[in-house]
C-alpha cells in the first residue's frame, strides 16, 4: 500500500505542522500550509494529495472557498474539514460541495486516521 499524501490547510501553522509530523510518524506523507493560496500552489506544484484536511475559518479565502478551489483542481481529492468553529450549516454546505467529512477540533489522532483512511479509500 502506497503511503497516502495528506495536505493540511490551516492558518494555525503550529497545529498544521505538528499534525503533519504526527501523521508522518504514522507512515503518511503529510504537508502543512497556512492558507488557500499556498494550498493551490502546492496542488499546482504537481504534489497531488489523496486527502486534504482543511480548516474552515481562515483569513482571506475561507475553508469553503478553498474547498471549491481544490474540487475545481481535482474533484477526486477528498477533503475533510477539521475546524474549531464548526456549525451545522457550514457542514451541510460543505457536504453539498463534495466534502467527505466534517470533524471538530481537537480530535483524537486515531479517530482522524480512521477518517483519513476512509476518505483515501474512496
Amino acid at each position, binding site marked *: 500500500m502506497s503511503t497516502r499524501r495528506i495536505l493540511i490547510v490551516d492558518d494555525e501553522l503550529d497545529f498544521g505542522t505538528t499534525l503533519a509530523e504526527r501523521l508522518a510518524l504514522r507512515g503518511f506523507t503529510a504537508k502543512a500550509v497556512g492558507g488557500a493560496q499556498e494550498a493551490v500552489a502546492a496542488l499546482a506544484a504537481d504534489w497531488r494529495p489523496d486527502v486534504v484536511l482543511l480548516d474552515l475559518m481562515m483569513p482571506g479565502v475561507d475553508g469553503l472557498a478553498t474547498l471549491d478551489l481544490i474540487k475545481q483542481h481535482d474533484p477526486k481529492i477528498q477533503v475533510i474539514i477539521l*475546524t474549531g468553529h464548526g456549525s451545522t450549516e457550514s457542514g451541510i454546505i460543505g457536504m453539498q460541495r463534495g466534502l467527505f467529512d466534517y470533524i471538530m477540533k481537537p*480530535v483524537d489522532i486515531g479517530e482522524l486516521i480512521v477518517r483519513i483512511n476512509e476518505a483515501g479509500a474512496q
Partner: protein
Amino acid sequence: MSDNPKCPLFCGMSGKDLSPRARYRCMRNSLLIVMLAITLIPLSITSGLNFIQYQQLLREDSQANARWNAESARATISAYLEKLQAAITVVIDSYTFEDLSDPQRLDQVFKRLKKEHQGLVDLSVIGQDGIQSAYIGPYQLAGKDYSDSLWFHKALSRRIYVSEVITGFRNVPHFVVATCKKDMHSGKYWILRASIDTETLDHFLSLAETEALEDIFLINDSGKLQSSSRYHGVAMDDFQLTRKPKQNDILIFEEMRGDSSFYRAVSRIQNTPWLLVLDQQGAEARKIWQVFKGRLFLTLTLCFLASGGMVVWLSRFLAGKFREADETRDAILSETEHSNKLASIGRLAAGVAHEINNPLAIIGEKAGLMQDLVGMDQDFRHKEKFLDQLGSLQNAVVRARTITHRLLGFARRMETSLTLVQLNEIIQEVLSFLEKDAAYRNIHVILQLQENLPVIRADHGQLQQVFLNVINNAIDAIRNDGEIHITSRRENHKTVMVAISDTGPGIAPEVLKHIFDPFFTTKANEEKKGTGLGLSITYGIVQKMGGRIEVSSEVGVGTTFIISFPVYSEGSEGQHDEHA
C-alpha cells in the same frame, strides 16, 4: 410628609413598593370603595330627594288639612250663631218690650227657642236702664242691674251682639247673644238677651275632631280661653297666642310642643270677639309618614345589602382576575427572560468554545507528538514518567473538548430536524444506554408507558438527549438502591406527557429554582463532575419543540420531572418540514 407606605387608597393600581398580597388587597379595597360609591351614592341621592319631596308633600297636605278643618269648624260655629241671632232678631221684631216683660210670654218664647237651639241657658229682657225686667232660666237673676256690664253697653250700640265668655252674676262661664231694639211707644231701647253655656261651643268644636287633630279651641283678643282646650285648660284660663290673623284670613304656622312640631291654624269668627285656634299634627307625626319612612328604610337597607354583597363579590372576583392575569404575565415574562438568557449564553458559549478549540487542538497535537516521539525513543531516560504526564495532558484536552463540544451542542439546540417521533420508543432507546449503569447500582426502572401514544413532531436526537439528561440525573441522584418510575400518557387531546420520578434525596427549594439555569450544578464536588449545562440544554430543547418541562421535588422523598409535548395532528403547523 413622606408617602404613607401603609396601604393608601388606590395603591393597588400603582403601589410598587407594596408586597403583592398587600397590593392586591389594596386593589380589592379600592375597587370595593369605587363600586360602592358608584352604586350607593346615586341610590342614596335618589332616596334622599324622594324623602325630602314626600316630606314636603306631606307638609303641604297637613297644612291644607289644617286649613280645611279650621274653615269647617269656623263655619259650624258661625252657622250656629247666625241661626240663633236670626231667631232672637225675629223674636224682638215680633214683640214689644211690654209683651216680653211678661214672664209667661217670655217663657213660651224661651221654650220654643230652646227646642231649636242647643245650649240655650236662659232668656231675659233688659231695659235701657240696665235693669233686667224679665228672666226665664235656671238662675235667680230677675231684677239684676247690668248697667255696669261692658256687654250691656256694647249690645246697646249694635243691632246684634255676641259677647266674649263671661261669668256674670251667675258665676258660671257663658256667653251672650243680645239684640237691641227701640220701643215705639216709650222711645227707649231695650235688649233681648240669650245666654249660652260654653259646653255648646265645646260640642261644636268637637265636631271637627279627626285623627290628626291635636287641639281645637276659641280665645278672645285678650288671650282668655273661650272654650275648653285639651292642652291649655278651660274657659277663662289664659293663653298666649304668638300670631294673629288679619281680618278674615286663616293664618297657618308651625309650632313646637316638646320635640314634635305641629301646624296651628288661627282664624277669626266673624261678628264675634273670638279667634278659632286649631292644632293639627305635623307631617312627621302622621302615621302615613311613619309607614313611608319604614318602607324607605327597609328598601334602602335591602338595596344596600344586595349592592354591597354584589360589590364585595365583584371586587374580589376582579382583583382575583387581575392577580391571575399578572401572574400569567409574570410567568410569561420570566420564561421569556429565561429563554433570552439561554440564547445569550448559548451564543457566548459557542464563541468561547470555538476560540478554545483551536489552542486546545494545538495543545493536543503537541502533546500527541511528544508522546509519539518519546514512545519511539527506547533510550529516553524518564520515558514512563513523560508518557504518564503526557497522558494526563491528553486527558485534560479530552475533558476540555467534551466541555466545548457540549457548549456547542447547547448553542446548537435551536437547530432542529423535525420528524414524527414516538415518545415510548425514545424512552426505550435511552434506557438501553443506561440500564447497565442502573442495574449495577441496583436501581429499578419501573415503566408505565401508555400504549398507542400519539406521535409528536420533534428532533429525534435532541429528544434522546432530553431523556438521557433527565434519567441520568435521576440515576446520579439515587446513587445506589432505589427506583425510577417512568410514566407516559396522553394528558388531553392536545398534549402527551412523560413523568420521571426518582427516589433520590430530593432538591431543596432554593436549589430547585435555579435548576434550569446554565452552569448551575450540584455535582461540582462529586467524582463525576457536571458542567451545569445538562438541564439547561434539556430545557432549551423542550421549549424549542413547543413542549414544557416542570420539576417538583421534596427533600427526603424524591424528584419528579414532567415533560409534555404537543400531539402532532394533520394540518398542524410545520407540515412543510421534512418528516418520516
